[in-house]
């Protein structure tokens, strides 16, 4: 686990990773070519990993219940669906986040988990 005393080190580590990826093909010490199939995979990485990070949060109430029925009374689930719906219709980042958070808090106020 990364504790708060190590946040700065973690940030520097992340910076090294992102820089190394961007610099990768600019080194003069070796020559590598990307296979077209690898290129195809690389286009898919970011959306896949972001999705994989969002799912356990949005579905957390369903995951903790063996039948999955708790999803129906989960504010995370419904507000998550709201965020998906809004993203399909409008493009204003902050507006979508503010609206779906408003939905999230409203649902909790109404008594959902």
């Amino acid at each position, binding site marked *: 686990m990364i504790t708060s005393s190590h946040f700065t080190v973690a940030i520097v580590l992340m910076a090294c990773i992102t820089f190394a990826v961007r610099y990768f093909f600019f080194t003069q010490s070796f020559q590598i070519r990307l296979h077209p199939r690898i290129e195809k995979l690389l286009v898919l990485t970011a959306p896949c990993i972001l999705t994989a990070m969002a799912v356990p949060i949005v579905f957390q109430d369903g995951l903790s219940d063996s039948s999955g029925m708790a999803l129906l009374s989960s504010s995370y689930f419904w507000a998550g669906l709201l965020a*998906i719906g809004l993203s399909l219709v409008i493009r204003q980042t902050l507006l979508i986040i503010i609206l779906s958070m408003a939905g*999230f808090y409203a649902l909790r106020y109404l008594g959902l988990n």
Partner: protein
Amino acid sequence: MTDSMSAADSNASSPKNRTLAATLAILPLSISVTPWGILCGTLSIEAGLSGFQAQLMSLLIFAGAAQLSGIAIFGAGGSWITLINSTSMITAQHLLYSASYKAVIRSLPLYKRLLFAFVLTDELFLIAQTEQLKSNRFDYMFAVTAGLVFYVTWNIATFIGIVSARFLTDIETLGFDFTIAATFIVMVIPMIKNKALVIAVVMSAIAAYVFAYFEVGNGLIFSALIGMVVGAIFSNSKEDNVNDKRELTL
């Protein structure tokens, strides 16, 4: 008017005008990225980072999606392995950009290569490509200027987010994980441009659910990999290939 011709000529020759042109070219993207910068700043503070650390993220990492995933991991008390894996996978797409500019950048002196790599974001790639299609040549100064303007905007936006977080501290931290999820959703949906991406994202989502349900270690990475592989298998339709080419040709 003949003015437009001479203006175009002087644009090509005068460095001052090129700086202005680069700034104007990246301006719309700088504006549209501002909300992400603000979010990065605010959420960093909510995840428990200091103001300095929050700003340091934007100063050193300069990659929105990677920063947000890092913030989510810090906030949730994730492991070093998760941080390393998710950061490298999220930024992996930059390998494509790096590969695209290999031919024109590799021969430059070290400091120029380092500088270009540092400012090589999705947005810069887009702007530099558009400019190159227009003028038929790669203009290093144009690209780096646009990249630096974008860097400054990103950091100002982050700073605004950090300052705003000070006013929000009393609002419940309970919704932090939901805000992160909503942020990722808003980020992913516009990325889904073709059938392969739909399949990849849906497969990742299903896999992530199953792995989370059975509490599989490193489920995050495995579900992303499953989505990517299945998506790639299905990305053989002509339409997708044309789209991919349009994004990649230089």
